[in-house]
């Protein structure tokens, strides 16, 4: 087989053994965290870890909705936004995280919703401007190559699709997918940040023998850095799951999400345990 004809290996197949091993690692990490934590704060630490895992899963699942076009989309040969998964997830999700961080003082629910809206808004603006550039700048209509009719509007796609391409532009379903993806990823990133912030606010003052006000910059900075780190880990793992381009929720590659959910849960648990160890050890 020549190097040019070879395709990346990752197919849609699941690997049940590896997923089982992944879930076992997850349970071991959660158990280890429970036993390492001091007796009186076990439930709090455990709830923080579960929040982090939930946030990571939201990121991993949400990124699948985002229409990623990569280099082919930049040439108008595939639908989606013309950049990689990791960059898009970072753009949409971190915008959500910053939005949520502003609302952190108003309670978990408000902050998570704000983070979700921040991410969704960022993706909506991105998707709209991408379509502006496609339609008015490059002169190409939006057409999906993966489905005959748009699942939401029912518009037929084949007439608008150019020969030799996989579709182009950003069809309505991809736009909606992008917004949903931004919502989930932004909410997930914010959830991780809030969980860590609460933990650090509660534990750092005794650890460093200082008041909560003095410690606040460090708590915010550490929670933010850990949230950004976990966000990037989760989004890159999801990018590896998608391997390149995806059109949105109607793409056949979307069915790979269970793999990503397991991987994100294990990766978040691992990073979460490390982030918790810094204060409970």
């Amino acid at each position: 087989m020549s190097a040019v004809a070879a395709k990346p290996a990752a197919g849609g197949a699941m690997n049940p053994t590896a997923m089982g091993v992944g879930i076992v690692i997850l349970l071991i990490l959660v158990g280890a965290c429970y036993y390492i934590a001091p007796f009186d704060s076990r439930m709090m630490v455990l709830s923080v870890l579960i929040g982090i895992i939930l946030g990571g899963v939201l990121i991993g699942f949400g990124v699948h909705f985002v229409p990623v076009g990569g280099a082919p989309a930049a040439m108008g040969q595939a639908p989606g936004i013309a950049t990689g998964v990791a960059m898009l997830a970072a753009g949409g999700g971190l915008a959500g995280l910053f939005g949520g961080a502003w609302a952190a003082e108003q309670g978990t629910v408000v902050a998570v919703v704000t983070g979700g809206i921040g991410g969704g808004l960022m993706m909506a603006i991105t998707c709209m401007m991408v379509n502006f550039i496609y339609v008015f700048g490059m002169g190409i209509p939006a057409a999906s190559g993966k489905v005959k009719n748009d699942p939401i509007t029912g518009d037929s796609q084949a007439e608008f699709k150019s020969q030799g391409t996989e579709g182009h532009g950003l069809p309505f379903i991809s736009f909606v997918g992008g917004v949903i993806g931004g919502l989930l990823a932004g909410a997930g990133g914010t959830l991780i940040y809030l969980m860590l912030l609460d933990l650090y606010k509660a534990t750092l003052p005794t650890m460093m023998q200082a008041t909560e006000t003095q410690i606040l910059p460090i708590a915010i900075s550490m929670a933010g850095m850990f949230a950004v780190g976990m966000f990037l880990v989760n989004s890159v793992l999801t990018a590896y799951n998608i391997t390149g381009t995806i059109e949105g929720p109607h793409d056949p590659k979307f069915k790979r999400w269970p793999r990503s959910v397991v991987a994100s849960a294990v990766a978040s648990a691992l990073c979460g345990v490390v982030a918790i160890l810094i204060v409970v050890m």
Partner: protein
Amino acid sequence: MTVKVEVVEGGVPHTTIMAAGLIVSLICLYLSYLNVITGKEWFSFFGGLAVVAALIWGSHTIKVLCSYGIGTGVPSAGMISFGSGVIAMLLATKFGLAAPIVALVLAAVIGLILGYLSNEVLNMKIPAMVQSLTELAVVGAFTLMGFAVMIGGGFTFATLTTGSITILGLSLPSYQASFLGGCLIAVAFLLGAIAIQHPFNACLGPGWTQDRMLMLTAECGFLSMIMAAVMSFALVPAGAALISLIIGIIGWAYSYTKYFELSKRDAAAWLDAKPIPDVEGH
């Protein structure tokens, strides 16, 4: 099945670069401990040298990994490197003098598990994946630790979180004037993440040569070092920051001229342009 598109032809083997990068950055990180021994902060620039060494190793690892068409773009490798590295590095700083060693072990464990997840659970099946993600996590941790040393003067948790501000001649402890409290770590994070992924992203293709890419990495590393040196004026004494700045500028000027020469050499030698392999982006 995955086929490797570009093979390392000639040049230094990857294991040599890995060993050299690991040892040099570890030694540089420990040399910066002279700050504590002497009580002065003049040795902070060793952090910057550790950054450059780790980045050179990391960009070659990215080359090894991304030569298999992973389909997600080269920047994603830099992002996961620092995403996992920052987590390991922050916990490792709690261990005092052992911090660089702990960072190495912890980052390797995190990278190993992430590599297993991507290869088995996500079904990537890329032979170099596990080793590369392990190396990249270590590189990320070392780079951030190097920046922490350079900007804040040390790699322990106390140095990272506690600074001092001078008001009317009185020196008061402050948590905001520190590497972590002032969130300078966020800037260091992206300085490193861009410096690690850019060289291979810029040099890849049929005309790739190892020495040119590594020289570009050194150039990016020294450029980041200049930025970090400017930021370090806020936290370490001006003399120490000035030493870092001068070393950064000299290193950058040298590596930039060398890179320019190498680019000219390779441009003139590029006689047979091969077709671009189309494996990326599927």
